[in-house]
């Protein structure tokens, strides 16, 4: 055997007893095992792919997918492709438009066309629906007929927008998600000031998530330390108290915060009763950013405590004792010996809480009021109310990229191996 090893070290192929190269032989014997292993993972893999990866890919695709105009206004789209975008297009395009509009009304797709256009150019929804109603009976010259039906057809902006929207893929959703838009010459410019919102909300989402993570760490660290060091009978009780929030529904917990924090709530009543504030000076603690931060910190605290606890539990008390015996005072011993060993727990807990916070939805919706809304609330708004799923997908895509960047940065700085989740 040692000869074979030497031979391998020397670069020559080692042969097995039957003359085949040892490497090949080894691979053959391992292949079966690998196949079995792969077979065992397959159901979960398929499940994750179907329920997780696939929808994400679909969502990302939706953020750039733009089939509505291209499919339902095919004639116009084809001709507009070659338009230079300078002067109002000629009769040929108007004729195509009239035909397309009539056809779209026939197939009942005009509503989708109008909606899609309206996302880009506010107020043109009715231009499309009303013109489409008349399109069937229009006669040449179509240019005059269409402009007579609605003078917006005589505007360059209308045509520029239509040309842009007739391409099958678009970046306009991502621009909108970053408070930008195309101007009339197809340059990318910032959105009008009174419509800029998402960049600010992204910033606020990061800030709230950071705040919640920091608060969770601040509150969770001592609790985790107690949990890890107290005798079993006390630590069990404490553990139940930490886990208790997990066993109550999110809505119940959030609602109890409303009861506690509202202007006529328990906490304000106590402050008034203690004469800390007067009746007129009741503090607004909920339906704002403060409410969001407080309620989210409470809900996410276990996600910080548990990784910290699992790390601290593995740190034997002898480390602290060793540090003391070596002459370090308790504070130095804690800071230099104990705390550094909890870094993997801090990292894991903070990352977990931060990522969970970034996507938080129900709690800010219920207690966030005006200033405590996060990006997920806007994604939900575009999913459920405005039905602008493309914009929702773009917002979600940006959020996803943000989380991935964060994770990448974390693994660069702290190292993923250094993270301990349980």
């Amino acid at each position: 055997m040692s000869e074979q090893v030497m031979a391998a070290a020397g670069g020559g192929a080692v042969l097995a007893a039957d003359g085949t190269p040892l490497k090949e032989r080894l691979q053959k014997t391992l292949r079966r095992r690998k196949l079995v292993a792969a077979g065992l993972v397959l159901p979960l893999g398929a499940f994750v792919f179907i329920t997780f990866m696939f929808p994400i890919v679909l969502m990302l695709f939706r953020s750039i997918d733009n089939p509505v105009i291209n499919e339902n206004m095919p004639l116009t789209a084809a001709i507009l492709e070659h338009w230079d975008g300078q002067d109002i297009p000629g009769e040929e395009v108007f004729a195509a438009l009239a035909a397309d509009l009539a056809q779209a009304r026939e197939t009942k797709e005009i509503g989708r066309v109008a909606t899609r256009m309206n996302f880009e150019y506010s107020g043109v929804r009715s231009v499309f629906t009303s013109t489409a109603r008349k399109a069937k009976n229009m006669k040449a010259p179509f240019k005059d007929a269409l402009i007579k039906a609605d003078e917006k057809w005589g505007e360059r902006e209308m045509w520029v927008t239509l040309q842009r929207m007739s391409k099958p893929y678009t970046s306009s959703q991502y621009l909108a998600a970053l408070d930008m838009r195309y101007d009339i010459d197809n340059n990318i410019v910032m959105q009008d000031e009174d419509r800029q919102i998402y960049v600010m909300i992204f910033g606020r989402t990061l800030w709230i998530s950071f705040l919640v993570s920091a608060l969770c760490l601040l509150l969770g660290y001592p609790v985790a330390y107690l949990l890890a060091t107290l005798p079993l009978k006390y630590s069990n009780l404490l553990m139940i108290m930490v886990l208790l929030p997990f066993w109550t529904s999110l809505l119940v917990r959030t609602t109890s915060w409303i009861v506690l924090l509202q202007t006529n709530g328990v906490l304000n009543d106590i402050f008034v009763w203690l004469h800390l504030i007067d009746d007129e000076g009741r503090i607004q603690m909920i339906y704002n950013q403060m409410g969001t931060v407080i309620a989210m910190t409470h809900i996410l605290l276990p996600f910080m405590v548990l990784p910290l606890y699992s790390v601290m539990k593995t740190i034997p008390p002898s480390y602290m004792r060793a540090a003391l015996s070596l002459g370090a005072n308790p504070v130095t011993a804690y800071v230099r010996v104990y705390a550094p060993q909890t870094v993997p727990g801090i990292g894991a807990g903070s990352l977990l809480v931060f990522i969970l916070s970034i996507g938080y939805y129900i709690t800010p919706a219920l207690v966030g009021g005006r200033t405590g809304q996060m990006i997920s609330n806007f994604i939900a708004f575009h999913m459920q109310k405005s039905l602008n799923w493309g914009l929702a997908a773009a917002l979600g895509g940006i959020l996803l990229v943000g989380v991935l960047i964060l994770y990448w940065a974390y693994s660069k700085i702290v190292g993923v191996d250094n993270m301990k989740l349980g």
Partner: protein
Amino acid sequence: MKKTLLMSTIAAAGILAASAAFAGNLTVVSWGGGYTKSQVEAYHKPWEAMGGSKINSEDYNGGLAEVKAQVESGKVVWDLVDVELSDAVRGCDEGLLETIDKSILPAGDDGTPATSDFLPGTLTDCGVASIVWTTIYAYDTTKFPGAKPTTMADFYDLNKFPGKRGLRKGAKSNLEMALMADGVAPGDVYKLLGTDAGVDRAFAKLDTIKGSTVWWEAGAQPPQMLADGEVLMTTAYNGRIFGAVATEKKPFEIVWDGQVWDLDLWVIPKGAPNKADALKFVAFSTDTKRNAAQASWISYGPVRKSAAPLVGKHATEGIDMKPHMPTAPGNFKNALQNDFAFWADHADELNEKFSAWLAK
């Protein structure tokens, strides 16, 4: 072997989908709370008693998102949905809803044909209205020993009535009410809102109470906020306030001035599993008797002219319902109808502006 597996998988999926939309069970989706209760009492129970199919009542939060998801994925499980006017029109335009032939609707009890018995504008291509509801504002009478608010302008007058206000978190009806509070006549509101100056004026008015406003989203919130003392006065759906007054004996008072009224309509998602049955239920539930009966459970006005005189007392509390109807002459003086066409064009832009304004 592979093929059999595939086939059986598809078959299994098919069975699952079929069982979700239980053959014969009519899935009726509405807004929940007291409103759904009024529909259950006035429509569902008599329908089932008459031998109609069993009704599976579900709640949702409005909007077309679920309908759109179902129709686009081809797995429609809802048969009938109660929607707002703008959604009925938009859903119809986008091909998400079935068109409803109005000839199935029975004539009024007084013999008037259905098409003229329904109030103008309450029948659309894809929708049949059942009630008129209103966004009003209300206050707690115990908090106002002296002068009480009586006009929309009072809602915005922090000097005369200092205290917190409640407003729905959204542009719709807030911008209209702000303009009316600023002295714009109902008839001019949407004309003005179509201009940048009008929008700016509405936001400027909203600015005056922004600092003292608590925002609500679900219809159940405003009565709760009033009861908790969280706000002094709040906009709300009139039925919710009436419910709190009638059944919980809350001392709330509705101000009938500058309110915005809207319709709720039945619509059928395209490809609904029990379309024929759903159509029958639409005809049944919107006949004169049923239409009037719902008003004895909640203070939303019937859309049939022939039903108006039949509105009587509350079914359990014995309150005379007529004065509480949004359509009652005394309440209807200075009311504005929500303009669905305006909102179809401008909702995206104005909601964005509203969100940006709100976040600042």
